[in-house]
């Protein structure tokens, strides 16, 4: 585990609050935040991953890599993400190394 501790920019947590609404909510101003701090139902784009090589490969194989859209289903340790239509269980110590930004995918149907 040699990856540097990611710098965290303190940001207000979910703009909508946990459990608000149904379906996806695009989160503004998420840049640099770890996915462990995303609220359930929030859609975001992976901007950076600071993990060991072996873990990077495992994440990539599961569809978590820079530029991909993800959504948090359940917070906690481990947490559950939705990636590519399937559920992914993820340790907190890996989740906090995956940085996200607001969803930028051009075909994202959940843009505000």
């Amino acid at each position, binding site marked *: *585990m040699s990856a540097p501790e990611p710098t965290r920019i303190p940001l207000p947590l979910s703009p909508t609050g946990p459990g608000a609404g149904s379906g996806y909510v695009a989160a503004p101003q998420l840049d640099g935040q770890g996915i462990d701090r995303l609220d359930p139902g929030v859609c975001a784009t992976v901007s950076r991953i600071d993990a060991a090589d*072996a*873990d990077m*490969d*495992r*994440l*990539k*194989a*599961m*569809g978590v*890599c*820079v*530029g*991909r859209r993800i959504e948090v*289903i*359940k917070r*906690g*340790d*481990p947490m*559950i993400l939705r*990636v*590519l*239509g*399937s*559920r*992914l*269980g*993820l*340790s907190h*110590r*890996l989740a906090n190394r995956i940085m996200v930004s607001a969803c930028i995918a051009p075909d994202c149907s959940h843009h505000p």
Partner: protein
Amino acid sequence: MTLGGRVVEILDLPGLYSLTSATPEEVVARDSLLGAVPGHAAPLAAVLIVDATNLERNLYLASQVLELKLPTLVALNMMDLASAQGLKLDLPALSKELGCPVVGISARTGAGLEELRRLIEQTVDEPAQAKPSVTPSCSGCDGCPHSARYDWAEGVGSRCTVATPVAKGSRTEKIDQFLTDPVVGVVAFLAVMLVVFTMIFSIAQYPMDWIKTLFQHAQTITGNHLPEGDFRSLLNDGVIGGVGGMLVFLPQICILFFFLSLLEDTGYLARAAFVMDRLMRFVGLPGKAFVPLLSAHACAIPAIMATRVIEDRRDRLVTILVAPFMACSARIPVYTMLASGLLFPHSPLKAAVLFTIAYCTGIIAALGTAWLFKRTLLKGESRPLVLELPGYKTPSLRTALLTMIDRAMVFVKKAGSVILLLSILLWALATYPKSEAPAEVQTLTKQSEELKAAGKEAEAGEIEKQAKAIEEKSALNHSFAGRVGHFIEPVIAPMGFDWQIGVGIITSLAAREVIVSTLAIVYGVGSEAAEENRDSIYDSMRKATRADGSPVYTTATCLSLLVFYVLAMQCLSTLAVTRRETGSWKWAAFQQVYMSSLAYVAAVITYQSVVALGIA
């Protein structure tokens, strides 16, 4: 298999998410597809079986396989489940996008398999390179090249999906609310495992008894038809005894794998690993190690085979190394002998408490050594959990049965030869060199013949048994095993053991429960009498004395022997499976040595401290 009049070899590659060569499975799969595995010809065609209910995720792997430019065929599995969910796919469109034939199948119902056979035949006869409509690889992107591939997969997926399920996975997520909860999930998991174990112990008993009876019959038959001598003894005690001792575990192995496969098929096993991950982290192991470690309470063999789900090599090795500490079913006869036979024959409650302590000691030893190994020998934190949680579905009995048969065959074939060889070796140790039967035996035999002649059959039989017991005792005493027992006596004396127990430790190296029958022989009860009446062993053991006349089986010796058998390896079958699963004798030898050393040290400490406390 035969396809259109010619024989085609089908090679099943491990299930994968990608071909990025990150894991050993991926390297093997990639090399096989490229024809780079020595001894295997380059493949004629690749058949890619993907989950129709999760097309986008699987198209990622598809794009990597298609890039290998092999004649490729895509089979969409679980089509029955897809339509049940309301998912409709445009197969001709997908075939066009991928540039290769696509067929919808269901392994569970068998639908589409004929079509698949026909397509394989066609692909093999007229190989055509796959030509995906768009090249998914993207070398120019400055970001992550995988991302482009995923974009492609998502694009193709959405273009080929006619109708999406109304509420995809909502049922699964509702169930997951409970089953992935840190508290409810753990409780639910323990309840599920309790049911599985109850099934194992209640069902397995019957086939285990059948197998025992079968092998006893086989021994009687060879006993009746072969002349008495070394060959009969080899066949009976070495071959039949050794193979029988191994096969008796088969029912437990089968039942455990059957239930594990069922649980995995429902999608539940992933949740078990999910909820246990955080707890297992305290000892440095991943959540996926929990089910194998729990399974080891039935038998360490299926447990070690079940560690294949653990991705990280170090995590897996540590799990394999510590699994045999768990109180497997072969320890039960030994614990019974010590707890309810010798120490507390009149108090079932105290015996039960001691049983529980023995079980807990095993668990603590396993977790403790795992913790130690992850900080020293196989340093490193457990790999953080990255685990797909598949949607819940009805399990397939067929798959469970096939998995069960497959695992059972692996055990019998691969471990069987090693076990047979070493059983014969141990038989030889306990049989040679031959010694003259003591004079006492001859007198007794004469007596029994006289009684028989006088028509007193019952008494003659009694004396014959006595003679046989004395003969067995003397033969073992003079054999290599007996000599080794005497030889190691100074070493085992600090544990409070005498040479007879030493012989028991040697003969039970292959299977720990053998100590019970060996002790029956060395204390002159005779193996037959012990089979018929357990109490006769306990009586003679209690009467056994050391050279100075003091009893051997004091509380201190019994406790020390119990601790030794909780911790010592004493199982050849496990050793053979460890060698197979780790791929080298090195780890098997290490396992044997460290477990024996730990057992020795702990037994010495137990004996010496109980003696020092003055408990008689």
